[in-house]
């Protein structure tokens, strides 16, 4: 049991730990799960490793406009028109909110 011997700090942490439920969700942005549809290609939380545009920290209206133009066909693309047609305007707004709120790097 000596491995557990960390003094008062451990006891305090243990008390805090007992006082809270087992799991906490963090970063519960309402657009989080929808935005996760995009992050396979555009990087976790919109931070691309390159080759695809990063979305993290972009202006909300820029993202929203791009998505709407992909959906209408006004903006040329390879896959993005086909993806954009799968989502509603309300879902675009949630995705744009989410990515605009992420730190660029």
């Amino acid at each position: 049991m000596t491995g557990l011997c960390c003094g008062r700090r451990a006891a305090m942490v243990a008390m805090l730990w007992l006082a809270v439920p087992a799991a906490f969700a963090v970063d519960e942005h309402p657009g989080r799960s929808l935005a996760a549809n995009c992050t396979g290609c555009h990087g976790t939380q919109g931070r691309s490793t390159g080759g695809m545009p990063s979305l993290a920290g972009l202006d909300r209206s820029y993202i929203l406009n791009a998505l709407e133009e992909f959906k209408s066909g006004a903006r040329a693309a390879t896959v993005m028109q086909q993806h954009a047609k799968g989502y509603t305007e309300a879902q675009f707004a949630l995705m744009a909110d989410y990515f605009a709120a992420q730190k660029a790097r």
Partner: protein
Amino acid sequence: MLRRERPTQARGRRKFLRLLGGVAAAGAAGIGFQAQAASGRVVVIGGGFGGATAAKYIRLWSTGIEVTLVERDAEFVSCPLSNRILAGTTTLADLTRSYDQLSGRHGVAVLRDEATDIDVEKQIVTLASGRKLPYDRLIVSAGLDLDYSGIPGLKSAAARERVLHAWKAGPQTVALRQQIEAMPDGGVFAVTVPVAPYRCPPGPYERACQVAWYFKLNKPKSKVLILDANQKVASKGALFQQAWDELYPGLVEYVPNSELADVDAASLTAKLLFDDVKADVLNVIPPMKAAAIAERAGLITANHKWCGVDFLSYESLAQKNVHVLGDAVLAAPLMPKSGHMANQHAKVCAAAIIALLRGDTVNQHPMINNTCYSFVSGADAMHIASVHRYDPEKKTMLPVPDSGGLSVAPNELEGRYAEAWARNIWADMLG
């Protein structure tokens, strides 16, 4: 008290959980906190596109959940892009990534081990090492097993060394490349395609293109023969046909309705129902089914092959508190068995497990999508894309009408996107 933890508390608690984990690993029992610690314990079997993504995203989206990933291989090797090894444009090293960041950055306990048994009543996974991992929620993302039961001629290990599958990226992929390189000009490379569904629907046809590209440049008198058990090309059919006609005229032959009955490995002969086809390199992609561990845990619900799940959480329809991801899932309509799809399953599952461990309801409107690239030559690729939403009445994922689609034609730009897709999705699951 139910509010979000302050960062310092979160850090302190994580440290404490690690401490508990360490003690548990050392075999100590009877510690008062262990029961509560276990109440946030997730075990993930399999570190592929599904399992690694789920492990990372549970940690990313929550605090206080201990995640242990069990993976038998030392490193991740990507199946997507691995057909390019056959053309010589990619190496296995290019497709290999470390699990280090999952532990280092995200605090996932990565165990190099293999799950040998799941006690779904006691909620304990037993590993090959003998170690036992209790769980509150288990994610089985163990992929597929290749099913040789219907191919008697490939029962022996020696026969399978001669007639390769190369359908799990690794040493077999490199060995198949060596067979193709050693083949004399004027030879025949034959690949057999199993009845759908199988992992990566366009994969066999992409493989035919990659071998044809190598032949065209190096062995132009050779031939690629596709013996397909299906009635037609399972994915991107028109685009593949166009590629074979335009890029490889006279070099690729596609034969539908050619189900494999047996193989004579010694003479490299594919025995079809009415015909024997002799090749110089014979590549048999056998039928597939959910990995054996899924079967042992009673997760298979359809055709003795696939695992039915609730698409709101990916929880098994057969076993409580066990979730199944990726290729082993009994697919919803038009849901391909792809790495991208497994990555998407994983995020829905991660969010659901966090909600369930908190006692919340799960998202009732999950959305997922798929993007799948195939290379038709050294540099040119094409894609198929789809978007799927949950249908509450049918309780399944259905493609959103008028969404998704295919490339107009393969090109170099899409080839660069295909490479960028791979780098990004590997980072999304592991980085």
